[in-house]
């Protein structure tokens, strides 16, 4: 099975191509350029260098969210466009869960944290079970960092943090979390499309897929205008 993986949920833009569990190619950029300028050129480059035949791809695995709204949509529209032309399905993958696959087999809890602004993180709590499958202990959500740390303390287990929230909330974690923790090493700390694609392969085999037309990102948050309108109506 051949899967193209795409992640543009955060500052990192990453694309990868995997074939039957083997990473053939992965291309990750973490600079200040917009995904709009880099994502498709990266795919184009990768396809040429790795001599990928687009017609052989079985599915596109995409980091569906949570993450930057605009970033998610650039990835999503790119995946939808390619999937439409090639008539292949999209495998939607939670950004949080894909991040856990950066640390496949790690013991203890895995806690991806992505800066969601307004003092919150997009997060979830996971661990890999004995048989290697990913278990969800806290569903992917948006929480204040304090709330998350309280929940983690209740587990009283070693936890590994990763994601772009590590740099933002490192000091907060040090201050508030009294149970043992560590941070993922730099090479595995941020989004990687190889994780998206490999995890996507597992999900695809379980029958998890969408058609290109119906795929859309999962934001976990309303737009500001909607939120304000509902708040106003709630008060009225």
């Amino acid at each position, binding site marked *: 099975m051949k899967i193209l993986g795409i992640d543009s949920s955060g500052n990192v833009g990453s694309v990868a191509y995997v074939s039957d569990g083997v990473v053939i190619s992965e291309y990750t950029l973490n600079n200040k350029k*917009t995904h*709009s*300028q*880099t*994502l*498709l*050129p990266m*795919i*184009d480059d990768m396809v040429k260098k790795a001599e990928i035949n*687009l017609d052989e791809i079985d599915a596109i695995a995409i980091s569906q969210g949570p993450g930057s*709204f*605009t970033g998610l*949509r*650039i990835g*999503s*529209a*790119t*995946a*939808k*466009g*390619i999937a*439409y*032309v*090639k008539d292949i399905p999209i495998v939607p993958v939670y950004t949080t869960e894909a991040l856990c696959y950066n640390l496949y087999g790690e013991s203890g809890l895995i806690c991806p944290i992505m800066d969601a602004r307004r003092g919150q993180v997009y997060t979830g709590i996971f661990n890999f079970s004995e048989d290697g499958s990913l278990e969800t202990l806290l569903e992917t959500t948006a929480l204040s960092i304090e709330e998350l740390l309280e929940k983690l303390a209740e587990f009283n287990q070693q936890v590994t943090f990763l994601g772009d929230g590590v740099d933002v909330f490192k000091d907060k974690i040090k201050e508030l979390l009294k149970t043992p923790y560590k941070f993922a090493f730099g090479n595995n700390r941020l989004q990687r499309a190889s994780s998206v694609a490999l995890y996507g392969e597992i999900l695809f085999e379980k029958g998890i897929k969408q058609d*290109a*037309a119906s795929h*859309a*990102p999962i*934001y976990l948050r309303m*737009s*500001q*205008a*909607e939120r304000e*309108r509902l708040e106003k109506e709630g008060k009225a």
Partner: protein
Amino acid sequence: MSEDVLILAIESSCDETAAAVVKNGRECLSNVIYSQIDLHTLYGGVVPEIASRKHIEKVNQVIDKALKDAGVTLDDITAIAVTYGPGLVGALLVGVSAAKAIAFASGKPLIGVHHIEGHICANYIENPTLEPPFHCLVVSGGHTHLVRVEDYGKYTILGKTRDDAAGEAFDKVARAIGLGYPGGPKIDKLSNEGNPEAIVFPRAKVSDNVYDFSFSGLKSAVLNYLNGCEMKGEEVNRADVAASFQKSVIDVLVSHSMEALAEHHASKFAIAGGVASNAHLREAMETACKERGIEFYHPSPILCTDNAAMIGAAGYYEYIAGTRSGYDLNAIPNLKLGERA
């Protein structure tokens, strides 16, 4: 005879998700528009994040429908054209990203198109004989441009708005007299019942460029008038306000357009953009052109509103001229007319 050029065009610069197939720049084979207007009516205007979210949900459907309505497949398409500015950046990015991916996966050339150039080119679709040079007034919710079309893809801006776009002024005045959003069609309709001479609102002149527009003073004058009536306890005749306000906008649009035509000894004039659907504007322009022996062109309402057929028409002339965009094509929210990225 050379082969037909079929452009698949995509437009998502504001609150319409649109796709179309256009043959040889002139023949519209399909024109699919998914309008989000009901969603934004709740907020009294377009909410960028909501627009962007809706675009991503609808983009594949409108593209697929455009191909099916045209009775073609992607294999028949020569090139992919997409609006990359000006507009709402998040909204533009959906169309741009989708268009790039489709061009990449199908191996077709990609052509970035300027939204306002698209509006101007809407006139080519229903007027097979229209060719540059001609003058065009582009009036919409976001733009007010008086343009001289020198040649295909070659534009000189003669005047533009210094503040509010004409359509924006319509929306703001409509809100002030309780008509709601979108204001243009509502004022157009209500003004049928009003006296356009009832209230004298100002016709703003911009001193350093006679062809530039300014509508914020007019909008303030209307608001002041409404406040004055309220303070005096006088009842406001909304139809008279609508008609008088509209007359003031139209007078300025017509006089600027006609003066520019005279100065350039131009013989052809077109209007474009959402406000070009305004029946009173159309009538006034038609009369003014007739009096001066100028040929007048205007698109049907469906080609005035944001649509992709106009992008297909503009994209065709870019294709012929050899314009090709790279996979790094970005959305440019403040893209200038005539600029090429």
